């Protein structure tokens, strides 16, 4: 019987040393283990709606229910303005972007601890676990976009040329979320209280970001401080590209994108520094 073909780009001789860090880099590792990444993502997607009464209907119901509640509380009761588009569309678009960010951040942060038996027993690039939470979050986002498109057509709200920039906003939001998620997951391996701190932080961030309201409602003197939150320009920008509302100032966009990229690079660096210890600590 012939020897099986080499796979996963393993070199013929593997040397294990105390300092033998991965040779492929984060992107290379993830590419070499893309099948595992897909399998884990596939597992999470299947499990999410198995043994639930409403099944896949949840994907549609969740964003709609969230936007309905926001519309009632902030649009009807508080009467917040919404940059000239129907309030429901306004908050639905922001919530979709927010759910993308929060979904990646919370799922990625918990991914290592939830899979601790795997980490203790089997080797694979650990970043596969946080990264495998991306597909589910992106699929949810795409479904929300389709719903939004339908509702915009019905409400006769037309997007402008800026809709072409949607992938860029998504990329920036995903990088920011994954960078934070990589740090969060690495911290959670050693410190389990991170899983209680994180939801509180995410909840606070929701109200510090333009989800239920527009940055144009923020008083002038707080605006500089307000835009320090990188989510502010990114969510404003995503909404502007979808609904044709005003774009945030360019300098804030540059700031948001820089922070997103920086967070991602930092998160990857921290993760790779700590990753070899995970099996001993978890």
């Amino acid at each position, binding site marked *: 019987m012939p020897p099986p073909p080499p796979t*996963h780009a393993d070199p013929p*001789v593997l040397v294990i*040393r105390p*300092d033998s860090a991965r040779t492929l880099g984060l992107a290379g590792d993830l590419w070499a283990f893309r099948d*595992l990444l897909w399998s884990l993502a596939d*597992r999470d997607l299947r499990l999410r709606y198995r043994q639930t009464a409403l099944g896949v209907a949840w994907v549609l119901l969740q964003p709609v229910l969230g936007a309905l509640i926001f519309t009632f509380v902030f649009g009807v009761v508080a009467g917040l303005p919404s940059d000239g588009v129907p309030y429901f569309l306004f908050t639905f678009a922001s919530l979709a972007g927010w759910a993308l960010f929060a979904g990646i951040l919370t799922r990625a942060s918990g991914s290592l601890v939830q899979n601790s038996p795997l980490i203790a027993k089997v080797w694979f690039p650990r970043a596969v676990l946080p990264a495998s939470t991306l597909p589910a979050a992106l699929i949810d986002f795409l479904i929300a976009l389709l719903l939004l498109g339908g509702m915009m057509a019905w409400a006769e709200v037309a997007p402008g040329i800026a809709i072409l920039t949607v992938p860029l906003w998504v990329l920036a939001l995903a990088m920011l979320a994954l960078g934070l998620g990589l740090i969060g997951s690495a911290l959670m391996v050693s410190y389990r209280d991170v899983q209680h701190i994180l939801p509180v932080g995410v909840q606070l961030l929701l109200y510090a970001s333009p989800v239920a309201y527009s940055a144009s409602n923020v008083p002038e003197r707080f605006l500089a401080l307000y835009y320090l939150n990188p989510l502010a320009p990114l969510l404003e920008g995503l909404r502007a590209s979808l609904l044709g509302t005003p774009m945030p100032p360019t300098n804030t966009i540059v700031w948001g994108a820089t922070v997103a990229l920086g967070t991602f690079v930092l998160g990857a660096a921290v993760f790779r520094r700590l990753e070899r210890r995970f099996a*001993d600590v978890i």
Partner: protein
Amino acid sequence: MPDALVATGLGKRYRISTRPPATTLGERFAQLVRAPFRGAGADEELWALRDLEFRIPAGSAVGIIGRNGAGKSTLLKILSRVTPPTTGEVRLRGRVGSLLEVGTGFHPELTGRENIFLNGAILGMRRREIAARFDAIVAFAEVDRFLETPVKRYSSGMYVRLAFAVAAHLEPEILIVDEVLAVGDAEFQRKCLGKMGEVAGEGRTVVFVSHSMQAVSALTQRVLLLDKGRCVFDGPTSDGLARYRAMQGVGEADGARFVADADDRPRNRVRAARVVTSDPGAVHRCGEPLTLEFDLAVPEPASTLCFSCKVVDAEDRNIVHLWCFERDARFRREAGDYTLRFEVPRARLFEGAYTLRAFLSDRRTNTMYDELHGICRFEVTMDGLARDDYAWSAGDCTYLESAGWTLARAGDPAVQRGTVAP
């Protein structure tokens, strides 16, 4: 044959803190505030492995044996890249497949089919490789009727068969196998041993860790015997096993006691075990009450935490199985240190030497927290149960039963009565 695996100067050091390590950010900050210039609490060092040197030629099957805590699992973790060594290096030629624990990576809610793909990917197989070997895996595991059933409904035997089948079809150049044969029925164990032998016959290398002396001697020509992190023997299997048995004899003065090595990490484990025998010196008279005690540390209670133990005879056969899987057992709800006692009113083990196996696991997550083998050696004698005419001899039975007998003569209403065994 070139060497498939070369280890030089291999060592692994664990830092053991004399104070409990911080497990929350809050504690860590408190530590930093109180003693800002101390590290995370690295106060003592423990070398789980030290200066290990060995080479394994391609196509051979090598066993790794040693007592609990000798460093076997640390070595396996290094070979499978789960944890890095502290010193030295290992060179591996070819793909490594490790089967460290049965069902690691299986998800109870997923079906057999879905789990085959998931587990294959976790072990490093590409999707199309798995698809190509799918039928062979299913046939080997004998689960074809249950492919669309969630594996949580599988029996433990089916679980093991499926897990082994996936790993065995990974076709790695180096297969690392850790004690998978403890579960599963005898026929399947033979099948697994056969498959591993086949793997070795194809020029692949098998590194096999087991407490089953039979399996080690059946499968390997050579063993490494580890003791306290060092390799104390490297040579033919039969000599290695003899040396290992002699080594176990040294501990006999301790009698039927086992105390686990200190471990400050808060994890569910068996701290100590005792067998209270009828006579001193770990000697038990057949038919007398026998008590087995286990000290369990349970910092992380789980709703399906299970403890079980087995009394194992000198030929490595499981004779008695005892368990505590009670739905509302306290250790499933509250963290703490527990002592679990099994009181056998009349232990009628046949004469011979016995040891215990103990397992602390979580059924739902399929986690094996602790697994001990060959602990608490004790001796059973038939003193006081002398039979006239036929003296006891080895192999008469494995377990005695008490029974009442009646003897009636045809056509005579009078019945003679007596008893067998205590």
